[in-house]
């Protein structure tokens, strides 16, 4: 990491060196990833045991009770959906914008989507009272001619999340085919076989490159509306109900921007871990990339804060009775400490820190900040779901606060194990950085020495 100038957006080594750096971790195991995989495996095992217990004894194993019908599972569902939005933003949006620096982070983002979206999608099923009958929500033919209720926002959720999962897997795969094809001759053993199968006989002809480019551009255009609709529909799960604090017009954009915000934080967490585990990547992921993505993060943070405060400042000024109860309960009720941590960790601290270039360019502080932001974003989802239900309480004898039970904690921890373990395993088998995009960016970057000052510009890709 040496370049200060933002114009140097490509990797800081030659193209063959990029290849070596990108494919260096493939097929190798190290103690760091072994430890991570072991912990993740144990978490998944714990979640499996907890979920078996829940299936056997019933949903009463959770901490849910009668006014608070939705709890930790739905909160974590919204959280993972948010993290999963990293993929779409960074790949599709930056690809469409023609940002050259994107190539360092696109695949990291897409792979985060690949693993966190199934984690998210599992929660609506785990949360069901009768999980074994989840297929009632699918439009399967049956002899009673029963359809699912297409008027229900939970149905829209089913279709939105499954469409997004399909789209993001295809998006990731299509852009990975050239890498697999290029790397295939230099791989050994079962990884070579795997790459041979998955690369569909990629030879690297001009026609094939043209098709990959077109497909990537097409997917970018198609997936953006899907992304926006997915998280808007997730917000409608709440916003379309009568519960005060849920029934908010700003929830659609707030959820969407919040998802991108936490998704970008997840990318920084992942990048920090990658650079720690594979120091060779430091030649490829440069300070400039950190700086540029940090700016995007800052903008998203500002947008999130704008929408977040828009959610309750108008209600506060109008003294809307429902919303006032909700606000007082949030800010000064039993969860006041968490609420103020949310405001500081999600708004004050990141926006202050990210304003400084030195901060944006340093790996460790960005890693810590990304963890803080994602904890605060999780708390934000807690505040979206729980206080509204606790306040909207017709049972005047029933004022028991909601707490996570051991079963819920184990299952939620298991999805963290699944996501982190999956990402670790992916890094061992597949290139986590897009070699061909990095090489292309490097090839297009022209460096000129102008009387001792080095500058760079990009040749058109056409």
């Amino acid at each position, binding site marked *: 990491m040496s370049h200060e100038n933002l114009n140097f957006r490509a990797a800081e080594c030659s193209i063959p060196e990029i290849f070596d750096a990108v494919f260096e971790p493939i097929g190798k195991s190290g103690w760091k990833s072994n430890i991570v995989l072991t912990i993740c495996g144990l978490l998944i095992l714990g979640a499996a045991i907890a979920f078996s217990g829940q299936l056997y004894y019933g949903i009463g194993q959770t*901490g849910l*009770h*009668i006014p608070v019908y939705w709890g930790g599972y739905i909160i974590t569902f919204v959280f993972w959906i948010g993290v999963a939005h990293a993929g779409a933003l960074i790949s599709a949006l930056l690809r469409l914008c023609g940002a050259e620096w994107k190539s360092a982070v696109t695949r990291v983002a897409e792979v985060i989507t690949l693993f966190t979206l199934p984690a998210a999608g599992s929660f609506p099923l785990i949360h069901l009272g009768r999980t074994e009958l989840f297929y009632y929500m699918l439009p399967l033919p049956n002899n009673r001619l029963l359809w699912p209720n297409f008027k229900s926002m939970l149905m829209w959720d089913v279709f939105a999340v499954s469409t997004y999962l399909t789209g993001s897997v295809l998006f990731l795969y299509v852009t990975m085919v050239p890498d697999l094809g290029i790397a295939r001759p230099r791989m050994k053993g079962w990884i070579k076989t795997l790459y041979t199968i998955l690369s569909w006989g990629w030879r690297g002809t001009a026609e094939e490159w043209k098709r990959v480019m077109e497909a990537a551009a097409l997917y970018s255009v198609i997936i953006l509306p899907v992304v926006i609709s997915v998280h808007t529909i997730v917000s409608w799960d709440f916003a379309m109900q009568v519960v005060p604090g849920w029934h908010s017009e700003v929830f659609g954009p707030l959820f969407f921007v919040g998802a991108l915000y936490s998704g970008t934080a997840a990318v920084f967490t992942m990048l920090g871990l990658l650079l720690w585990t594979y120091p060779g990547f430091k030649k490829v992921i440069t300070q400039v990339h950190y700086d540029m993505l940090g700016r995007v993060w800052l903008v998203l943070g500002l947008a999130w804060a704008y929408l977040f405060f828009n959610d309750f400042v108008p209600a506060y000024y109008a003294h809307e*009775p429902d919303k006032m*109860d909700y606000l007082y309960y949030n800010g000064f009720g039993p969860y006041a400490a968490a609420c103020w941590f949310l405001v500081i960790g999600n708004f004050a601290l990141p926006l202050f820190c990210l304003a400084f270039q030195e901060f944006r360019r340093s790996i460790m502080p960005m890693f810590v900040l990304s963890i803080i932001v994602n904890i605060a974003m999780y708390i934000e989802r807690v505040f979206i779901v729980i206080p509204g239900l606790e306040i909207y*309480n017709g*049972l005047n004898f029933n004022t028991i606060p909601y707490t996570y039970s051991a079963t819920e904690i184990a299952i939620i921890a298991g999805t963290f194990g699944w996501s982190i373990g999956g990402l670790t395993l992916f890094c061992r088998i597949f290139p986590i950085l897009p070699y061909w995009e990095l090489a292309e960016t490097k090839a297009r970057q022209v460096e000129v020495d102008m009387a001792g000052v080095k500058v760079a510009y990009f040749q058109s890709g056409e």
Partner: protein
Amino acid sequence: MQEFHGELQWGMTIDVDKCTGCKACVVACRAENNVAVVGAEQAAMGRIMDWLRIERIHHGTYPHVHVDFIPMLCQQCGAAPCESVCPVFAAVHTHDGLNGQVYNRCIGTRVCANNCPYHVRMFNFTYPTWPEPMEKLLNPDVTVRNEGIMEKCTFCVQRIRRGTLDAKVEKREVYDGEVRPACEQACAAEALTFGLLTDSESAVSKHYDRNKFRSVLLHNEHDTRPNVVYLRPDRDPAPLESVTPLGNKSHGDHGHQENHSEMKPSAEATPAPEPAASATPVTEATPAVTASPRG
């Protein structure tokens, strides 16, 4: 004027003035409908199930305190918020205007319970159990609901079906009083009146017509078009203003609403939208707000 979708529309009037809060209806409902007894441990976790509950609404300041008892049951809404959100059609509208709950179809998303302004939907968090002799007293006409599904007041649909089928066999209409839900049957004060709103000669229709001036639809701000009509106490005008059973804040009575961080019963947690939207008394001058029997 409310529109009825089917030929029949079952409905109920609840005279709050007559209700003594004795909870005989609650007990009758549990006995009739096999409502599970969750036990002390689950009850402490807040999982008590009651298809019908008595809400107590206090007003006035000491020593002039008054309590109204509001029997709260499924309002069998004409435009039910629970039905539209169920992804699998477990909450459906029946041909005779009930909010049906298909236990076999329910997968337990619990979204209907979140969306119910009356909080009358109860969820089976555990397998249903009864203390020792009570499991021998279960009503054979009513399904015992399994763990993981939603249930709620059905207006004693098993009695409605029996009554209508008997009438069909004997090739006649259901006569008034032939179908009586358990709560109405048990009410010593005769605060509850059940019958066909579509029959202008039925007791419920007549009772409603006579007492239209004090009828109230709860949470009318959500336009749920409930088929349970509450008749507010007919005392002198001042208490009448402050009664506002459920769903309306009493304007002059802010004594116990100072602490906003406290959780409140829905009687106080919901706002009082000014124009004709909320639980406004239905007078002769504004007959359009509430249900009206049709001959």
